[in-house]
């Protein structure tokens, strides 16, 4: 029982200490006429305040509420309630904002802000109230939003934005848009907080248009509700006016499109409740971002047997397998919180725990395309911000080749990934479970990228290119076929795990069934605080935690 409640409860056994010398005496007379009169006046005022606040909490009224309900949506306060940890406080701000300010009623300025607990950490929550003028931003809406961000920045609190807004209220644009403390400041704050390591999370429940589109776009990580959330800079009528294109909202900026094609959104939710459940998981995976220590959970065995790894992977590297099957046999409870599942599917990224330690996993499910490289880069930035170590599960033949890929800038996108690996602000671990070829070796944290540990499975191979490509390349460089055969044989032999391990290109060959424990022990080492006695930063040969950033990304 908390100390506070023990004092409050009348049946409590602890005696109140009136005899302490520092106790202030109470000299009032609660039956005096002045006291009674003052109390009555105050009670009346409070009752009036309660009534006004209760009215403000109802938002834009019954009609708007029914419209949202009919669309299968949760109401703004229901979303808030689902987002917060059950039975925790919510310190709501400025409930009477915009009260009797505008000619029309804008309860709470059409936005709910406050501080509450999500997955065990305090966050600033900003909720657009779409029942009030479609969630559009009045001048005081902007002010209330900015004030919430200010509090977040002052305290280093992660921000969660529950978005459903048409953007600036056009009639008020002069007092919403141009000035320093206007709309643009919202995104300025998001960018700065992200740079300061204060996570910015957005959930798109409805329309998020024009300026509003930048809230999810500027967020570190975001969620969109399928066939409900919409992000675009201009809606279909404006598009038609500007370009003549006729397009419906879902095609233009729906969840499916943004999650699988544009990459604007990271998680695709089935409904409001699902979106909020994902947001709660994201906040649970924020690591050290926002100034908390990373919680180490009680370890839990995977649901599936590690011995099945043999049958999943096999020894023929040409046979594809789903790396999720490998992950499911390494991580606690086989639970994997996947990031950007629908986007760049040839790489798999997400958070998990191994023996209780949080880890960000980057794993290959095929050839690396531009999209895959960008996804991995984004994910490594998240891990850097959150101080969550990275685990690379490698089975990669390389980056995509061909004129389409080259025109698409595969080289610069691959370079982004390589840069992110090189400069990630966290310890890295690499397990080569299949092939590690060519530039894929760089992007997937080969030996040259200073992983804290690099292990190989006995079936795995490391070389400049795969055997198939090798023979083709050979034909172009030399005309003597006898030399081809010898060189090919030589390179193939040099690419084996045995050859590599014998030359200490790794830290040893481990059996697939050893992976979970080896990774767990390494994560336990990586979790040791830097700057501890015996860990002198200056003398470290590895740059994996100096918060120096990433240099210049070639865009």
């Amino acid at each position, binding site marked *: 029982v908390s100390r506070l*409640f023990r004092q409050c409860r009348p049946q409590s056994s602890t005696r109140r200490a009136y005899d302490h010398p520092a106790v202030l005496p109470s000299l009032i007379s609660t039956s005096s006429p002045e006291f009674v009169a003052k109390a009555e006046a105050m009670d009346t005022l409070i009752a009036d305040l309660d009534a006004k*606040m209760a009215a403000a909490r109802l938002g834009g009224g019954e009609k708007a509420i029914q419209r949202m309900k009919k669309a299968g949506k949760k109401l703004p306060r229901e979303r808030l309630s689902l987002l917060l940890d*059950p039975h925790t*406080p919510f310190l709501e701000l400025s409930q009477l904002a915009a009260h009797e300010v505008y000619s029309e009623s804008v309860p709470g300025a059409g936005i709910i802000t406050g501080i509450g607990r999500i997955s065990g950490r305090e966050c600033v929550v900003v909720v657009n109230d779409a029942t009030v003028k479609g969630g559009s931003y009045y001048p005081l809406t902007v002010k209330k939003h900015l004030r919430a961000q200010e509090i977040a920045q002052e305290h280093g609190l992660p921000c969660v934005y529950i978005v459903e807004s048409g953007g600036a209220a056009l009639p008020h644009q002069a007092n919403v848009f141009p000035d320093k403390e206007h709309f643009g400041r919202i995104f300025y704050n998001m960018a700065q907080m992200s740079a300061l390591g204060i996570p910015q999370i957005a959930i798109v429940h409805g329309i998020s248009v024009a300026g509003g589109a930048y809230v999810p776009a500027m967020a570190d990580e975001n969620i969109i509700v399928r066939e409900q959330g919409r992000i675009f800079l201009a809606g279909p009528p404006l598009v038609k006016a500007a370009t003549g294109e006729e397009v419906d909202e879902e095609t233009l900026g729906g969840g499916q499109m943004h999650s699988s094609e544009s990459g604007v959104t990271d998680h695709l939710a089935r409904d409001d409740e*699902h979106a909020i459940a994902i947001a709660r998981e994201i906040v649970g995976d924020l690591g050290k971002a926002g100034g908390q220590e990373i919680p180490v959970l009680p370890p839990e065995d995977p649901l599936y047997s590690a011995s099945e790894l043999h049958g999943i992977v096999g020894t023929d590297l040409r046979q594809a397998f789903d790396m999720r099957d490998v992950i499911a046999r390494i991580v606690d409870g086989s639970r994997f919180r996947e990031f950007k599942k629908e986007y760049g599917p040839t790489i798999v990224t997400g958070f998990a725990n191994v023996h209780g330690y949080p880890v960000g996993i980057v794993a290959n499910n095929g050839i690396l395309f531009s999209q895959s490289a960008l996804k991995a880069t984004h994910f490594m930035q998240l891990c850097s911000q959150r101080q969550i170590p990275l685990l690379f599960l490698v089975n990669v033949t390389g980056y995509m080749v061909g004129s389409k890929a080259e025109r698409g800038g595969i080289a610069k996108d691959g370079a982004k990934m390589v840069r992110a690996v090189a400069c990630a602000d966290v310890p890295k671990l690499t397990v080569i479970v299949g092939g590690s070829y060519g530039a894929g070796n760089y992007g997937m944290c080969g030996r040259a990228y200073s992983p804290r540990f690099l292990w190989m499975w006995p079936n795995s191979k490391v070389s400049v290119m795969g055997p198939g490509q090798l023979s083709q390349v050979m034909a172009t460089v030399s005309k003597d076929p006898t030399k081809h055969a010898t060189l090919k044989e030589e390179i193939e032999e040099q690419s084996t795990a045995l050859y590599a391990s014998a030359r200490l290109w790794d830290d040893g060959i481990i059996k697939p069934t050893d992976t979970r424990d080896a990774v767990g022990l390494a994560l336990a080492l990586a979790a040791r605080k830097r700057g501890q006695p015996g860990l002198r930063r200056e003398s470290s040969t590895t740059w994996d935690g100096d918060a120096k950033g990433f240099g210049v990304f070639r865009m």
Partner: protein
Amino acid sequence: SSASSLKGRKPHFDKILIANRGEIACRVIRTAKKLGIRTVAVYSEADADALHVRMADEAYCIGPAPSAQSYLRIDKIIDVCKRSGAQAVHPGYGFISENAGFARALVDAGIVFIGPPESAIVSMGSKSESKTIMANAGVPVVPGYHGSNQDPDFLAEQAEQIGFPVLIKATHGGGGKGMRVVHTRAGFLPALESARREAEKSFGNGAVLVERFVERPRHVEVQVFAAADGGCVSLWERDCSVQRRNQKIIEEAPAPGLSPEIRAELSEKAVAAARAVGYLGAGTVEFIFDKDTEKFYFMEMNTRLQVEHPVTEMITGLDLVEWQLEVAAGNPLPLNQEEIPLVGHAFEARIYAENPRNQFLPDSGKLAYLSTPTPTHAFAPAVPITARSASEAMTVAPVVGAMTAPSVRVEQGFEAGAQIGVFYDSMIAKLVVHGRDRTEALRALRGALEEYRVVGVSTNVEFLRTLSGHEAFVAGDVETGFIPKHEASLFPAVGEPDAEVLAQAALYVVLRERPQLTASLWSSLAARRFGGDVYERLITLQTDDASEPIAVHVSPRAQHQFDVTVRAGDSERVFCNISAHLVDSTTLSVTIDGARRSTTVVAHAPSASASERLHVFHGSRKTTLHLPAPSWLLALGGDAHTAARGALRAPMPSVVVDVRVNVGDRVQAGDPVVVLESMKTETVLRALVAGVVRAVGCKKGEMVEEGRELVDVEPEEVSS
């Protein structure tokens, strides 16, 4: 007598082997420990962590889970005797306890069988032989004509002699075919004709026998004990009339409403029966007792220690396993007939994993949660022994016990986490109570049943509780047809769960989800809101029959106080100011309208895919409520186990009864693929998706463990 017999007494064994499992193995080990005898357990692979294995001094694995490959393997058990140096074997009940071959094999190996001689097992194992022996020894058998003369008038004559009502039964029959009950002479010939016709049709043989029909039979049995020196005593009778599926579920001693004279008669005949076969050790002579005429007839003799032996122990204050060991060691019986007490009244209720409301079909599964009443005794408490005169050796009325409080024994062989009813019998435990008289013992039984809580399998606990409070049962008005006769009152309609129970379930969910109180005010100032806002939590509950979900709104008022609104269908119930807190993870303490009570709530998810269930134990009832998963989770196909790919896995340890597909077969979603059996219940696994069978991972007759992949179906590509 006990003091004098100590002199020439032969020593006990140093080490015995218990060729059984479950509660009876534990029961035997307890007595052995008490006497300083070392114990050897045997176990199957399925029982590696079982309680009897842990209780024994040594334990040996004797094979895979199926009993034919383990507990029934005589050769392996004898081998373990030799390896461990066990001098004698206690067979318990069931398995090989009445296997004459086992008794002989032990004798051949120079090991003592703690049971009767082989010959007695053989004689009593045959129904016809045993009846002949008994008739010759003057033990009454059901009067009847079993001869070959099939002349209708002759048979009618016989029926008259036997006395109506009589039963006409096909000699080669079974399953009720060719069976007729006849109440009068006039009805005999037509009934005979139709019985013959039916028998002819069903068995190709129209021969019948005629027997006295007992209209309202009771099952009364006598516990006898015989020693090598010729001593043979009766330890009084037990009544086991109330049965379901021809199996006992509740037993008592002494039999209610029996006069000392009839008791003496029963005992005399039982002892005569035992002597007739040169019996040794513990045995039970079963009689059909005609409620209307108070006549009784020999049915059969069981040559083992019975499941229900504890009720006899309770009324005599004896340890029957100890007696068995005495007799096996070659010692005389510890007491004479005149010294055997009969004190108070005892009940035993067998707790089974079964569904009483579904024809008592067995259930199987894991004991996810188990909480039992606290036993007062491990053995029967001793009772004073005073010798009666020889003339009153068997003519005894129960003495009202001197003890101040009823005794409770919990005979169990399993703990939470054990698998029940998959490979072996589905009995979970036995509750044994002893009171000064029948009324007191019944009250103690009801109390003990209310404290017996199981989650994971269905049990008969609630049924036993209803039975032990049933008017006719309380009156001692028992007969073998008790359950069908009183069906309506034994199975009262199950109503909608009480609003109070729903409120408690919701409060449990709310309280267990409360954050741990930490140093942070951000959790300890629970659910604090400002500006008159009120935190409210909505808990959705569903009953088993999947009707309309029930919405329960819970609003905290103060640290331990809540307002709760229960909305089920059109009805609404509001509870203001409920005080509630969790005493431990399964105990909720609530005060509703000034009434304070403690409720056990157990949360349990029967499988990875199923929604969580809350089992609320209130009074004698258990209400099961589902916490439905959010719709998005269901839409995602919450169960990763059976996700899209089409692999079918065994939902529980079971036997593969049939594999209906081969590799390469095309199947449609819903086609039966594999048939499993787990304790007499068949489960048909159906294809989850349409496609081609890629692999079959089991074969017919094989035992498969939970989660084993049985068939993999490669889903068809859906062309778009």
